[in-house]
């Protein structure tokens, strides 16, 4: 694995660089430690909306050209807002990366937040939310997440609540931007075809003049433990019943996250950690597929265990077989969970999970954007060492730890059960 260069600029901006000379491409990511967990009630969705406004221009790069400059040079760019972080990336022909760096340094401080643009983007974000609401699984996920967190701001969806999207002001957005978009709250990660010394000098020229700000506050209202199962149901159009089970799970940097990863691999199949490149693999030999899908209780089962700053959720999403009831599925699910809690998992099963993880890792390393992604992303919930040590940490997981993870996490008292009940269809053509 190529060497990593890490440094911090005088203003606190953390820089992570990884030279990869396999293709004439550079991928650059700026990460801010701000996400939906930094939003008080009344301003839910503000981090995501601020991310949208970062494409609306600065005096130097007005909106009318901001959307074109990267594309014109053959680059791709986008941004993502998540629970704990917001990130902006450009992947470009290597000789054009200067442009991405200048643009990101500029919009770290100089975005205009023009009131007319704010007004226009308000309806765009509301439209984005309405598109999400068309999906039963969005509606169910939102309800389950809200039931799982009463105190912690992981309570609400990243897109935010309609009430807040309608009422937040330009000044709210701008204040959020100025508070969190400071170099000492950010990580710049680059991977690709560059010489470290030269590019670092240019990064210093562009980013070091940006003044550090006061350390932004992070909301930290820890969620008390659950003291019993929460159940909820939701009704909506369609013919398909969905069942979701969300268990409170360890944070990404918690050593218990690794046994959970192995457990998840055995129960629902290995998950790809890669946001870019190297999609996942099938899960037809996983325990839950065999129990639920092969036995015709469900038509699909999937899971997600994600790396968050604070403890979040380990979630199973099950598409119920059209001839079955959600309660039957739940009962079979619980039997399968009991089996992994009571029996010892063989060393072979764990070895298999390790090999799967190794393959998924290799697929991810084909792609330079994905490598730059991980340089920064790991810093958002742990450090890059987490990523470097990932395979070794998984390999060290014992069957006792897997069993303990199953026993401590997969308790009914530690979960929310959500059911989407379809109310049927009436489709007409005009």
């Amino acid at each position: 694995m190529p060497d990593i260069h890490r440094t911090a600029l005088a203003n606190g901006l953390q820089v992570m660089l990884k030279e990869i000379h396999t293709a004439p491409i550079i991928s650059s990511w700026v990460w801010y430690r701000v996400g939906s967990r930094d939003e008080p009630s009344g301003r839910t969705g503000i981090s995501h909306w601020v991310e949208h406004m970062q494409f609306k221009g600065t005096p130097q790069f007005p909106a009318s050209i901001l959307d074109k400059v990267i594309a014109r040079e053959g680059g791709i760019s986008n941004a993502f807002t998540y629970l704990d972080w917001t990130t902006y990336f450009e992947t470009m022909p290597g000789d054009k990366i200067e442009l991405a760096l200048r643009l990101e340094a500029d919009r770290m401080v100089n975005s205009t937040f023009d009131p007319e643009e704010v007004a226009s983007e308000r309806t765009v974000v509301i439209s984005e939310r309405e598109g999400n609401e068309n999906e039963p699984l969005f509606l169910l996920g939102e309800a389950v997440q809200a039931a799982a967190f009463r105190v912690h701001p992981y309570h609400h969806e990243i897109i935010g609540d309609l009430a807040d999207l309608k009422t937040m002001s330009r000044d709210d957005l701008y204040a959020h931007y100025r508070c969190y978009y400071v170099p000492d709250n950010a990580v710049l990660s680059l991977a690709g075809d560059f010489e470290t010394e030269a590019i670092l000098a240019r990064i210093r020229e562009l980013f070091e003049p940006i003044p550090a700000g006061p350390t932004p506050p992070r909301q930290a209202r820890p969620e008390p433990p659950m003291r019993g199962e929460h159940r909820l149901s939701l009704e909506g159009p369609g013919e398909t019943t969905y069942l979701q089970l969300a268990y409170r799970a360890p944070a990404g940097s918690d050593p218990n996250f690794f046994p959970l990863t192995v457990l998840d691999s055995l129960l629902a199949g290995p998950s790809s950690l890669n946001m870019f490149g190297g999609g996942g693999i099938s899960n037809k030999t996983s325990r839950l597929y065999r129990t639920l899908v092969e036995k015709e209780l469900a038509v699909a089962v999937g899971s997600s265990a994600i790396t968050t700053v604070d403890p979040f959720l380990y979630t199973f999403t099950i598409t119920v077989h059209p001839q079955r009831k959600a309660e039957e599925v739940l009962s079979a699910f619980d039997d399968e969970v009991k089996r992994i809690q009571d029996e010892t998992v063989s060393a072979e099963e764990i070895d298999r999970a390790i090999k799967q993880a190794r393959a998924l890792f290799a697929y991810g390393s084909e792609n330079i954007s994905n490598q730059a992604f991980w340089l920064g992303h790991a810093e958002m919930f742990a450090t890059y060492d987490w990523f470097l040590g990932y395979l070794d940490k998984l390999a060290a997981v014992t069957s006792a730890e897997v069993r303990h993870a199953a026993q401590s996490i997969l308790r009914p008292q530690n979960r929310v059960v959500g059911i989407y009940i379809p109310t049927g269809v009436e489709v007409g053509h005009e």
Partner: protein
Amino acid sequence: MSKTKSVKHNYVSLTTYHAAPPSSSSLPGPDDIYRAQFPNGITLLSRANFNSPSVVISGYIQAGSLFDTDEKLGLADFTALALMRGSAQRDLQQIYDALESCGASLSFSAGLHTASFSGRSLAEDLSLLLNTLAEVLRQPAFPAEQIEKLRAQLLTGLAIRAQNTADMAALTFDQIVFANHPYGRPEDGYPETIQAIRRQDLVNFHRRFYGPRGMVIALVGAVEPQAAMEQVQRALADWDNPDQPDSPPLPPLTPLQETVTRRVNIPGKFQSDLVIGTFGPARRDPEYLPTSLGNSVLGQFGWMGRIGDAVREKSGLAYYAYSSLNAGIGPGSWEISAGVNPDNVTKASDLIRREVSRFIEKGVSAEELSDSQANFVGRLPLSMESNAGVAGALLNIERFDLGLDYYRRFADLVRAVTPEDVLQAARKYFHSERLAIAIAGP
């Protein structure tokens, strides 16, 4: 908002930090694509990439939904999806256990002309991947209970499709543009056609249409092409199906004579999807590149081109509003899609139609075209970053007979397109009064 024109070009003088200038050698070409044809009709294209210890295969067989009857539409797709559910040698759990234990994957699906497969593994497991491919292609067992499980999954998928406003708008759009043409039929069928399919139909479809003639495999990754060729040869060179038929000829497409609008009512939804467009060129038509560049200006470049600018940026009506061009063996489609609040359907539709009219009348400016040309040329190496990206490029070369040097010539081909070429292409396909409009929503 200030719009300072002068800053537009202030980034032309750039310092360069990359180690080596981008060279065409990062793109596949005759000197690094290995191409072999076996006597039974299989073509292999391979390119080595030792940057990661992984490998991908992808390819197709001449067994698409064109062979489906209307009554059993979805049979080609059903057959492709059922291949992995059991073979003469192994059952589903055994097949997937071998693959998943290695973190490998292999899957099938059917399109109009071909059934496709794609798989990936660590390079050390390539032979497992190829042997599995050969086994399920040549000796699928179609176990009865697995067929029923799969049927329930397919029917659930169709029930979900019927509730998806974007899917239903796209499906309805195809039905309008390709009326009385096989391209107007969804490859995954309808609930009643999936119900009508018997196990024996799958067995017959496989026996008749699956064979090596016209099969193409692209193999990219950490393996020497010669070794790849030998492994493919061992797995598939003795496959034979003497009765394999030619693809049925495509009937001519009758273009719309007037604008046709169709609505699908899906109660209880929060957003409507609309698709507006027309038919487009085939991939091999000379108009393909001018159309593709025109499409970029219309609804792709930057943040979804002129359509994105009009519908999203200026009016705030939609989160997504873009145009796309689908070009394949036969006539393609050229369509504009948007998701909007149900109250804004007419407003968005009017804005889109206005942009279409402007596009047909005035075409694109030299500056707009050169932006999109630079984008097409510049992003090419990015699309070849991963093994899957290169495999896709190799399949395009073979499927559309583009020539092994196509991606090396691509920049010149793109730069040769003029604004007049784009205008002609726009006028050939788009007519303001002959549009297909599909709307799905509450």
